């Protein structure tokens, strides 16, 4: 992240105050770290059982942006973290995500630097590896990215796909937006609806076209999804909204090139 220009000013590990890692001072708590450095964003790597504690501590210490990389956090913990963050005016990205990057400017995440290039394509993705795949293809095709947001694939996330779309729609550097979805849930269908209302061109790819139907979540799952949530319904929703859908990941670059 520092290599990328992000000002990493502090680390927090309880009991390790006074140490330094690569020249970055370590503090016992987020409060002390924010007090000493004025940090306004925090990135959480701590293991799942301690992630909720770390997240709430960072929110209480006053950070405005919280990126949670940790995977396998019980979603009941996220049910507490997300509305609490919102009530304190803190934007959360993740969990279970690669983070967020504005190529050439800053990165709060774990994505590989070398595949990114500054440009005007915004990318929103539920999946880590697929993001890399598609970003790589975009860069190789000669385009670049404004901001890439890995929103994470968990049931309860801080910034949803439609919200991320709104954010990029408002961003001046972003001219076109690529949405990378997956089967399950109805967030892509909702994003497609939102895509109709924004002026920028949106492109989509949906992973899992050939996947067998997922496990049943009782009758409740069926009642909530109302037949939506499959690759087919998502692709249809995007196409109905005038969003071109790529057949395979790198085809996104071809679609960008043909417009």
């Amino acid at each position: 992240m520092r290599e990328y220009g992000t000002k990493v000013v502090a680390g927090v590990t309880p009991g390790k105050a006074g140490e330094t890692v690569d020249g970055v001072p370590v503090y016992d708590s987020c409060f002390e770290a924010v007090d000493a450095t004025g940090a306004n964003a925090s990135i959480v790597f701590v293991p799942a059982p301690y992630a909720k504690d770390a997240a709430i501590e960072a929110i209480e210490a006053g950070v405005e942006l919280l990126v949670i990389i940790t995977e396998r956090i019980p979603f009941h913990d996220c049910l507490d973290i997300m509305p609490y963050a919102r009530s304190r005016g803190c934007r959360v990205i993740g969990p279970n995500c690669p983070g967020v990057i504005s190529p050439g400017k800053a990165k709060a995440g774990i994505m590989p630097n070398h595949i990114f290039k500054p440009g005007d394509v915004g990318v929103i993705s539920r999946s880590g590896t697929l993001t890399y795949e598609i970003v790589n293809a975009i860069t190789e095709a000669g385009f670049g990215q404004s901001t890439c947001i890995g929103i994470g694939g968990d049931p309860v996330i801080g910034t949803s796909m439609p919200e991320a779309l709104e954010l990029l729609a408002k961003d001046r550097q972003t001219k076109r937006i690529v949405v990378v979805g997956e089967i399950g849930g109805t967030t892509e269908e909702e994003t497609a609806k939102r895509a109709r209302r924004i002026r920028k061109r949106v492109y989509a790819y949906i992973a899992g076209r050939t996947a067998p139907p997922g496990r049943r979540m009782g009758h409740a799952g069926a009642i909530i999804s109302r037949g939506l949530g499959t690759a087919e319904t998502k692709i249809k929703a995007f196409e109905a909204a005038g969003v071109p859908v790529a057949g395979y990941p790198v085809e996104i670059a071809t679609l960008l090139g043909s417009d």
Partner: protein
Amino acid sequence: MKFYEYKAHEIFRKYGIRVPRGVLATRPEEIVDPPFPCVVKAQVLVGGRGKAGGIKFARTLEEARENARSILGMSIGPYTVRQVYLQEMLDIDQELYLSITIDRSARAPLLMASVQGGVDIESVPENRIFRMHIPPLVGVQPYLLRALAKALALPEEIATQVSDIAGKAYALFRGEDAELVEINPLAVLKDGRVMAGDAKLIIDDNAEYRHPEYADLPQDRTPLEEDPEKVNQAFEILLKANPSVILLNIFGGITKADTVALGVKEALEEMHVNVPVVARIKGVNEGRAREILAGIGHPADTVEEAAEIAVKASTGGA
């Protein structure tokens, strides 16, 4: 984590939700004093056990043991029945529906209920299903139960019990890290009591560490989920499927591609894998990874290239 019916009932009971009386048996001789009349039910983690003959009625001890004997050892889907649950038969007047699950779109728990419960719940029109999100920071508040009671329009003595169960179901949902708490039917008995006729419970796998009490229960997991880290085991599992070619595709973020490649190399050598392996590994030090794999498999740069090589290899072309 899914639960056998009897176990789910046990947990519902713990939260004060009334469920039918029942006893568990693994052998017919163990059955001595079941509630009569009773339903003998196969304990499996899949649906469709009624159709498979895994649910039978009994009025006498003879019948109960006889039915248990025929159900135990039966195959239902991928499972062999090892346990039967003998459950009191309910004198049901009306079947309601109640569930709490996570609504991903709203990122909040969703309470759903209907006076038209039972097996056809999925075809009940949307406007006949009450749904309201539960704000997770404060939980079920009285307004929610008032709205529920109004929507279901049940007689007061029934509505009070349904509200009580809804509150307890939410306590269970939160307390047990559940993804789904579903009561279908929520049975209104002829004697006026309301009880969970059936109890479905799914717990978030990520929260297993908070529930060591369930660690010994049999799980319906695929082998891949058991231990995703170990390359060796992954290959072992793959090889069991008798593949004609193995395609490995990794696009790592901070993952060191060369470390992965070394792991793959070791696994391949150790396990004497004799099918072609096509590997496309990107990430930190991907050049080194390519070198490491060059001697043993077919390295590829892109996923498309890897897929083409794999198809060729599987049809004997490479």
